[in-house]
């Protein structure tokens, strides 16, 4: 039975889905094929999720001799021949609507993600599961063409809509020749070269001719070489933590010095022979906590030699262009005191206690780091790393780290899972000013409600470990701590203390 070919395109508003649809309609018309397209642009043009729907009658007007096919205006579940999507989450959304089916649909989907606001705004990691999206998309379609269209578009210097068009042409289902599509792009006369380049990239990818590049993680501390002594000490740790140690040692040498990296290994040593899971987590978070985010570290990061080249590339600057970089810094009284010696810092803060003005004092700076004076200021600040050990922040961080390690050590005697979860809670402590205060506060709340009681054996260690994991997720659920409060009050039922073992 002859039936219309159905093509559903999922895109984001502003990606050029309308233009893409026109290209397809024009190509069908140029091929003398009956065609109809519909869309629901409306406010979805403002970056929301939207779809375009095309039906093409697979016989020419001459072949059907004056008869007019009745085209449907909207897609129906189970009736899509080709589904093309410029973004992976939108692929999932249309699968949920039943438009992609294993008996019929050829799925063309980009593997890249444009994150939705709800994914981006989470305090931790709110991203949808990519692997699952790809898995389900594969399971629920007849055949698949997956590739990173964003990447292909960038490489071709084209809009993603042109790449999509190429992939639709290349999938081989439409009774329209590649050349007809190319002609359409040329006839339109807008950004012809870029669009053709994008079209060819999509065409190639759809025909299976695309090289997959594995992303190499950058090594930020490639310029640091670990000392033979540190390397020797690190070698005595289990294989599972070797990659972490390789990074951590150089990270802390960069942050402070060789001795500080040695301190890291000292602190880690007691866990070397314990449960590997605990060791792995302590190794990771200890390195993170020891390279805490004080203003000196910020200045170090912003004065790295490779930074300007990276920023220039980001702006797309050509050789003759000049690039000016302005930093947005707003240190307050707390950050100021962080880099002072403890005695002076305490004095200043005592005065701040009494004066709201001083307490709320911040210095907003727009610093031109591409100027000599601006760079010099940052470089001077970065150079303060020599005095870091004497700063109040350093003292406080070391105390806090020791206290955290102490909790883990105590827990390890009770239950390895509990120790691992306490170690993992270091994830909460991050950021600057309010964010840092909030994270530290949340850790404190979990400590008071769960870790403390567990270590005092007031509650069962095993279940405490589960509750701590839940509380950690809750702490990252909302910035006001509402979810954490609910979770903690739900798990606050004290379990009768276990009787001491007889021996």
């Amino acid at each position, binding site marked *: 039975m002859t*039936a219309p070919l159905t093509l559903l395109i999922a895109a984001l508003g*502003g990606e050029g889905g309308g233009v893409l*649809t*026109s290209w397809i309609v024009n190509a069908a*018309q140029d091929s003398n094929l009956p*065609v*109809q*397209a*519909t869309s629901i*642009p409306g406010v979805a*043009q*403002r*970056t*929301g*999720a939207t779809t375009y729907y095309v039906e093409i009658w697979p016989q020419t007007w001459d072949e059907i001799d004056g008869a*007019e096919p009745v*085209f*449907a*205006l*909207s897609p*129906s*579940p189970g009736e899509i021949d080709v589904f093309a999507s410029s973004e992976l*989450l939108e692929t*999932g959304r249309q*699968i*949920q609507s*039943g438009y992609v*089916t294993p008996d019929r649909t050829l799925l063309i989907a980009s593997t890249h993600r*444009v*994150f*939705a*606001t709800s994914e981006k*705004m989470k*305090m*931790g*990691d*709110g991203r949808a599961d990519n692997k*699952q999206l790809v898995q389900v998309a594969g399971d*629920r379609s007849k055949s698949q063409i997956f590739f990173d269209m964003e990447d292909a578009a960038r490489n071709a210097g084209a809009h993603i809509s042109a790449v999509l068009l190429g992939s639709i042409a290349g999938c081989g289902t439409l009774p329209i020749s590649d050349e007809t599509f190319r002609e359409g792009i040329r006839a339109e006369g807008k950004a012809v070269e870029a669009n053709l380049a994008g079209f060819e990239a999509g065409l190639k990818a759809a025909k299976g001719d695309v090289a997959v590049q594995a992303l190499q*993680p950058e090594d930020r501390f490639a310029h640091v070489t670990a000392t033979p002594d540190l390397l020797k000490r690190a070698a005595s740790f289990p294989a599972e933590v070797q990659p972490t140690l390789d990074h951590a040692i150089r990270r802390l040498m960069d942050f402070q010095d060789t001795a500080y990296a040695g301190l890291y290994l000292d602190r880690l040593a007691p866990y070397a022979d314990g449960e590997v899971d605990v060791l792995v987590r302590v190794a*990771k*978070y200890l390195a993170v906590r020891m390279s805490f985010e004080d*203003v000196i570290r910020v200045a170090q990061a*912003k*004065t*790295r030699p490779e*930074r300007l080249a990276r*920023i220039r590339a*980001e702006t797309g*600057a050509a050789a003759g262009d*000049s*690039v000016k*970089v302005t930093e*947005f810094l707003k240190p307050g009284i707390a950050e100021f005191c962080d880099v002072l010696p403890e005695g002076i810092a305490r004095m200043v803060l005592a005065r701040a206690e009494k004066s709201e003005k001083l307490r709320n004092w911040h210095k907003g700076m727009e610093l031109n780091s*591409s100027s000599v004076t601006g760079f*010099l200021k940052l*470089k001077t600040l970065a150079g303060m790393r020599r005095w870091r050990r004497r700063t109040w922040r350093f003292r406080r961080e070391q105390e806090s780290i020791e206290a955290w390690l102490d909790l883990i050590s105590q827990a390890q005697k009770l239950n390895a899972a509990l120790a691992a979860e306490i170690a993992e809670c270091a994830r909460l402590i991050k*950021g*600057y000013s309010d964010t840092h205060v909030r994270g530290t506060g949340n850790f404190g709340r979990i400590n008071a409600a769960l870790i403390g009681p567990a270590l005092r054996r007031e509650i069962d260690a095993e279940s405490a470990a589960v509750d701590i994991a839940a509380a950690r997720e809750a702490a990252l659920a909302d*910035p006001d701590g509402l979810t954490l409060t609910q979770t903690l009050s739900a798990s606050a039922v004290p379990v009768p203390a276990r009787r001491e073992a007889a021996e």
Partner: protein
Amino acid sequence: MSAERSFSKEVESLRLGDGEVFHGEGILAVTKALLQSGVAYVGGYQGAPVSHLLDVLLDAEELMDEMGIHVETGTNEAAAAAMLGASINYPLRGAVGWKSIVGTNVAADALSNLASPGVIGGALIVSGEDYGEGASIIQERTLSMAMKSSMWLVDPRPNLTSIVDTVESSFELSEASNTPVIMQLRIRSCHVQGRFIARDNKKPPINTRERQKEPAPFNYGRLAHPPVTFAQEKLKVEERLPAAQKFICDRKLNEFFDGDIERLGIIVPGGLYNTLIRRLARLGLADDFGNSKIPLMVLNVVFPLVPDQIRDFAAGKDAVLIIEEGNPEYIEHQINTILRKADIQTRLHGKDVFPMAGEYNGAVMHQGLMGFIEAEGLGIGDPVQIRAEADRIDAAMDGAEAAFPTALPPRPPQFCTGCPERPVFSALKLLQEDIGKVHIAADIGCHAFATFEPFSMGNSILGYGMSLASAAAVSPFQDKRSISIMGDGGFWHNGLTTGVIANMLNEGDAVLVIMQNGFTSATGQQFIPSSAKGRGGRDPGMSIERTLEALGVPWMRTVRTYSVAAMVETLREALTTSEKGLKIIIADGECQLARQRRLRGENAEKLKSGKRVELPRFGIDDEVCTGDHSCIRLSGCPSLTIKPNPDPLREDPVASVNNSCVGCGLCGEVSHAAVLCPSFYRAERVRNPGMLERAVEGMRKSVIGLLGGHGA
């Protein structure tokens, strides 16, 4: 005319003549059909899905001038509807368009006053039915509005030929029955891309070039004023209705399609015809060219119905299915009455097998047809094929919704990259963290995107320009002042009178934020009275600030929207000052979409002549960012996104600015105002830098290189 899209190409297709093929969008086909109908004046108010109707005509100034057609952009739908008043006294054909149901509601008073005296020149309202998937407004139908005012409602089959023919016949119907006609077009019908064979345009006999020498003579009968309103009510049912029904029959506006299964029938509005045929075809009850085995009555005119046609169609059948979206089921009620009075015992199905609410898409249509088939027996058509189709659709839906164990993140529309309205809500969020929550009366416009994450702000939306009015009885009962948000589009649409003037008249103490971006941006950047450039690039010369000054608004501030800290303080002052009376903050910032379009042109010119061009954007040091995303919770900009953490020891993704950044400056403002983190930087790429600039940069590079920074 709009700043978002130029219709220069479409304007060309408006000139097509007899026998030429028009390719394009549904709403543009309507525009062409108006010209083929000899329309003398066109008006309307923008809104999806009908904005383009007027946009393209405003771009076709030259053609309109040649043809002597007057084109007017209404300041709201009431104004557009009132414009049809020209057809009461004069044999002028006129058409107006708007988004329905909202536009029809705004226009309702004028429409009643138009429908009562009736028209002598054809009057057509093109109603973009913003209903169902993709709709942005409350879900109501236009039919009841047509019925209560006795205006006819046509609903053509959604192919360009039918739509164009219906436009032409609607003018005739209107003139034959002295009644305004509404043509409803669903969202997808407005945006459908298809083709039709064009006819020559008709120049209206009375036009802007060949004018009338004298106004119409005084005729009390053409006023909507007692006592003639009583007579007009009778005229509607005694003369105009029969005249319309006769015209519908004579001109065969409704279509009848025979089928083999004569004991059944389906009555369907034209707009749903294609969906029906597709479902029937898959069930083996029709082919893809519209030949149905079940007889069809296609209501291209859904109001008024023609009782004779209904009786003739239903008589002798066992059962008839009525397909009608919306609630209540007006058509079904009428048909029931018609058949009952004629004592015809044909069974009726409709809302028993179709849902009371929601759009009838393919899936719903299939379920409804299956309900009809089950009720009337599987003896219809080939039961094997029907069962196979039902199983196939069940299989397609089976497990689809549950394909993912967790709900997929929603992706509603949002403020564009660099939108000037976003910073106002960043400021509001920061302020509320400080002083606590306040009641926020939201409005229609792009700023309604603030109701979505990350802002989730707004307690009510009562219609376009209605925010301040909607807070009138909220503020007196709140300790804290409430804030009303209004766009400049809403302000001119009616917010000036319903909001500002009402509040002052009642000695209110409200706070109003007016988003001044220079366009009705949500609908495609159409021009408004305070646009810098209006029709034909000319300045309309009206200003919100001067208007408010003239009214004597006691407290008024204009703040650049991107200045978050200043906005926070201005809002704080407005909310806490002891000064009584209306407080208005004009949040000033040009629509970024429009601005970027403007800059692209300007910069291209500058680059061509070797002039200096600054291209700012923001960036984030991913080593400094710790992945808390506070910045995103205060922004939600599409260009401010996340990426995998390059730090092998951290899992939470870091914030990242992508290449779509336009350097609006909000990221910098927010990181200062909120004391966020030092990750952000602004990078200004300068193309064609000056000699001195280059020399300074060279010197800087070498000195900084010596200091251990980047080399050359």
